[in-house]
């Protein structure tokens, strides 16, 4: 089963050389593995472990997550607009489930 759809917010257009802020929000419980349910059973750990971003085929950002990151992980970071291309955002959790979002950045001179 794929992960729930994530949301990525970034400008569609930027000037060459401009630093663009990107915000990514993923719906995920980030279950720590430390909690027990109402029946006293331990709730297994279930977290997103890796987030990666590529721009025009080159990896530009990555994050290693643990249960120390809040539920529904929010990540804000930057990239410098080089040329028009596709940004691919990938989340992978500890059950091997993946979610991917693609966004196009148009770079104007």
């Amino acid at each position, binding site marked *: 089963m794929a992960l729930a759809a994530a949301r990525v917010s970034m400008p569609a257009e930027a000037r060459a050389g401009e*630093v*663009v802020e990107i915000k990514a929000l993923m719906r995920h419980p980030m279950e*720590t593995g*430390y*909690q*027990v349910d109402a029946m006293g059973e331990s709730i297994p750990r279930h977290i997103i472990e890796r987030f990666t971003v590529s*721009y025009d085929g*080159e*990896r*530009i*950002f*990555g*994050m*290693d*997550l*643990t*249960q*120390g*990151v*809040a*539920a529904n*992980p*929010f*990540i*804000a*970071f*930057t*990239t*410098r607009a*080089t040329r028009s291309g596709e940004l691919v955002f990938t989340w992978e959790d500890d059950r091997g489930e993946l979610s991917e979002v693609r966004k196009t950045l148009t770079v104007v001179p």
Partner: protein
Amino acid sequence: MPTRRQIIAAAGVAGSMLALPRLATATPQMHDDALSALSGGAPINDGRVELIIPGVAENGLSVFTTVAVESPMTEADHVRAIHILSEQNPIAHLLTWHLSPRAGIARVSTNIRLAASQEVTALAEMSDGTFWRDRRHVVVTIAACIDGG
């Protein structure tokens, strides 16, 4: 006199804290061990890094955290990675961000969990192999339920 709503809310908080086992938390020693493991024993300098985190966090379940590092972010001189470390959570090393010169500037944010009031450390690893850090004390009013709750 408290209203019925307040009593119910208070009972809910107390109940959720009591019903669950307490876990061992990281210690300042584990935090220091994680720090030296990340730096490979290289000296860690104070400065260049700014950890922006509330001094008082009302809700330890989600604490907005930003790290900014002074760096030109060029091929020759950039931030390779930023780590966040805790000394009171069940684990000491909370996250790592991997950066490259393509970032333009070194400034990243996310929401972290804090199990208790504690010192939080941001450690930056530069392309020249040096390590820089900033530390902030955070008072947590309602601890993250990562130690049960």
